[in-house]
């Protein structure tokens, strides 16, 4: 393997920067909604504990938001830097949702974030509250456009090939924005993000409750967080089910790889494997533990449905797209990431249900030390689930950069030498790793300082006004 292979390095860089960016996106998407709800409740009830919660989770949201923005810039520019052939080929189609995102959503989001942070005493109360809801709207819309662009890579629609075959040309923007993949992937992504925000709220609340601090406030946020996780999980599950149907229809190879299913099967034979061992070269299965019918049910919503296997699809694609290419993604990666995604999400939901049961009585005292610990450590589960979910989605698309249209290896910049990509890969790795440590430390501090930090008593109105307007 050539260590200075630009393709390999560009792929690693894309994977690294994308997953790193995605460490921050779910918390931004989810926590802004939580903060908006808290502030609305405060506005409606006048109960100051909701203001304290707004401030506390608002602070965590902002520490995180900054990282989301700066790492997002890298995402946009690396298409041109590392994937210029891809950019030339799809720019006409792929660029439009990105431009829409900028013009309609991103400007909006960034502007109203500033107004919310600095506007506590400059804006009328209701307008200030509206600002945070504008951020909710902007960030959610932003996610929609980005996912629509991504959906084109999974399932290209609304385009035609130019007469010389040199590029994909947009012919129907409506089709691009209502791609069945984005219609399913958008709710799935958003609900997963909300779920993560919920577990973060639960963890912060549990940490304080386990120490007997801010009992009334933290009990409210704990119960809120648990309900929020469960409600979001229902959304994740329903949309995930829809997404897998779309996936089978549009990218059967991805589903076959997710199942490590080598041969096509129907009905009882289309079983869902809980665990599977294959030969080292990955072409055959040695042993697996299977649940009959389940895969057929998941993929087609019927007990006697048929699911195509890797070998048959490889034969089909060889005929369709030409020989000499392995059209199968790396099976063990897709197989395990698919499972871990579901397991992590399911575990987080189970913990939330248990938590809701345990805390059902009005008691605020410690339930049991280990239970608090479980609640605290459940925080990263949905995030890890989302991350492996993205690994699954993107690795399952390989070897295509745009499914059926362009291979990943053809999308890389032809004129960028490996050492250049290596420099940027090292630079991003170092900076991202350092910032991750700093950011995590800051969020932890903010969470542990709790609702009182930086919130002077309401009696000291003048001082409080000054604190609010001079944030930095």
């Amino acid at each position, binding site marked *: 393997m050539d260590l200075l292979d630009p393709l390999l390095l560009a792929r690693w860089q894309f994977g690294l920067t994308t997953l790193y960016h995605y460490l921050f996106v779910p918390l931004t998407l989810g926590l802004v909604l939580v903060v908006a709800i808290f502030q609305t409740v405060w506005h409606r009830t006048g109960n100051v504990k909701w203001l304290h919660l707004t401030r506390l989770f608002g602070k965590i949201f902002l520490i995180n938001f900054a990282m989301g923005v700066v790492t997002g810039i890298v995402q946009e520019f690396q298409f041109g830097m590392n994937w210029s052939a891809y950019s030339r080929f799809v720019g006409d*189609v792929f*660029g439009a949702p990105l431009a829409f995102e900028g013009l309609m959503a991103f400007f909006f989001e960034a502007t109203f974030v500033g107004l919310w942070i600095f506007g506590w005493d400059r804006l009328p109360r209701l307008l200030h509250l509206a600002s945070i809801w504008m951020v909710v709207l902007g960030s959610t819309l932003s996610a929609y456009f980005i996912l629509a662009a991504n959906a084109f890579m999974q399932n290209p629609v609304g385009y035609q090939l130019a007469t010389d075959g040199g590029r994909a040309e947009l012919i129907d923007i409506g089709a691009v924005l209502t791609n069945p993949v984005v219609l399913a992937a958008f709710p799935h992504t958003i609900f997963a993000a909300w779920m993560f925000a919920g577990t973060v709220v639960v963890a912060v609340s549990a940490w304080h409750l386990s120490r007997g601090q801010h009992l009334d406030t933290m009990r409210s946020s704990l119960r809120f967080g648990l309900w929020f996780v469960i409600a979001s999980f229902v959304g994740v599950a329903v949309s995930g089910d829809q997404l897998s149907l779309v996936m089978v229809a549009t990218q059967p190879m991805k589903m076959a790889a997710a199942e490590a299913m080598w041969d096509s099967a129907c009905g009882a034979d289309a079983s869902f494997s809980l665990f599977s061992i294959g030969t080292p070269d990955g072409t055959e299965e040695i042993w697996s533990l299977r649940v009959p019918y389940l895969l057929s049910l998941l993929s087609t919503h019927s007990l006697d449905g048929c699911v195509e296997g890797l070998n048959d699809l490889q034969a089909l694609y060889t005929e369709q797209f030409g020989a000499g290419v392995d059209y199968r993604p790396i099976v063990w990666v897709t197989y395990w990431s698919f499972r871990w995604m579901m397991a992590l999400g399911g575990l987080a939901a189970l913990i939330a249900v248990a938590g809701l049961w345990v805390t059902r009585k009005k008691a605020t005292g410690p339930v049991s030390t280990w239970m608090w610990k479980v609640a605290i450590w459940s925080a990263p589960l949905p995030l890890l689930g989302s991350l492996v979910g993205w690994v699954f989605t993107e690795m399952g698309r390989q070897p295509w950069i745009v499914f059926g249209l362009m291979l990943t290896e053809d999308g890389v910049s032809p004129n960028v030498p490996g050492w250049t990509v290596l420099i940027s890969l090292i630079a991003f790795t170092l900076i991202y790793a350092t910032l991750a440590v700093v950011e995590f430390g800051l969020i932890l501090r903010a969470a542990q300082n709790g609702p009182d930090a930086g919130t002077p008593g309401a009696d000291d109105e003048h001082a409080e006004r000054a604190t609010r307007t001079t944030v*930095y």
Partner: protein
Amino acid sequence: MDLPSLWFWIVGFLFLGYFVLDGFDFGVGMSLPFLGRDETSRRQIINTIGPVWDLNETWVIVAGACLFAAFPEWYATLFSGFYLPLLLILLALILRGVSFEYRHQRDDLRWKRHFDLMIVVGSAVPAFLWGVAVANIVRGVPIDQDFEFTGTLLDLLNPYALLGGATTLLLFFTHGVTFVALKTDGPVHAGARRLAVRAGVLTLGVAGVFLAWTLADAWTGGAPAFPAALIAAAAAAVCVLGGIIANARDREGRAFAFGVGAVAGAVGTLWFSLFPNVMPSATDPAFTLTIQNASSTDYTLTIMSWAALIFLPLVLAYQGWTYWVFRTRVTRRHIETAGAAAAH
């Protein structure tokens, strides 16, 4: 006007917005070592751009996305060709962005100094490199028949481009220092005013040479929009001069308006010189990327035109309103009260 040409001007407008807006907050960042004598003045300086730096920076993201969508070939050639300078810009923007958010998170002077340094470097590097990049675009770089950049980093570091970098660095610095003068009181305000005058004089010299060089190239290259470039350059010069005079007379509101004019004039000069090309090839004029051969299809440009027509005025309205909401000065007393409250 045909759609690709319209988008040439819209992309130009978005980059202009970016350079005018992030331009002054680069300048504010760079002014820290000159004007931030103590922690209070540093906080005063940083808080002048607190509510707006983030939305200013979004302009580059939107400009980049629109460049991608409207001119995929240009986007691909530019960003793969100018790889290392762009990498530096990205790293600088990352470090600078998080520094604003992180410096105030701990009450520890060493922690704050650390992030102050990153703000200074993170502001100066993009301020310089954006100039280098744009100057190279206008001047032309080695491009082959497949529109691929074939040069090296050294091709990008030519005297004209370096002068372009120095021009944007000084222009943004002056622009930012003027903004500090406009938004503060006390010693920071007085210091900023004096510094803006001196920086303005230096800018006038350097930018004058750079714009004259640009015009000379445009003239010999037979740029069709040469008269417009000439007018823009003259306007830039008048605005820099006007800014110096206004700052000297303590009219910083007017001085800031002149600063906006100066940046607009400089960007205008470059854009008019470039028209109707988007990235000339130094290898062979036949390989030059033009508005026509680099653009997306009319369908894509049509729907984007509708989006821009509806949303750009809206963006200008709500961002303008944001500046109005935060129009008051960041006073020294304000910071001190906030400091007392934090210790409360």
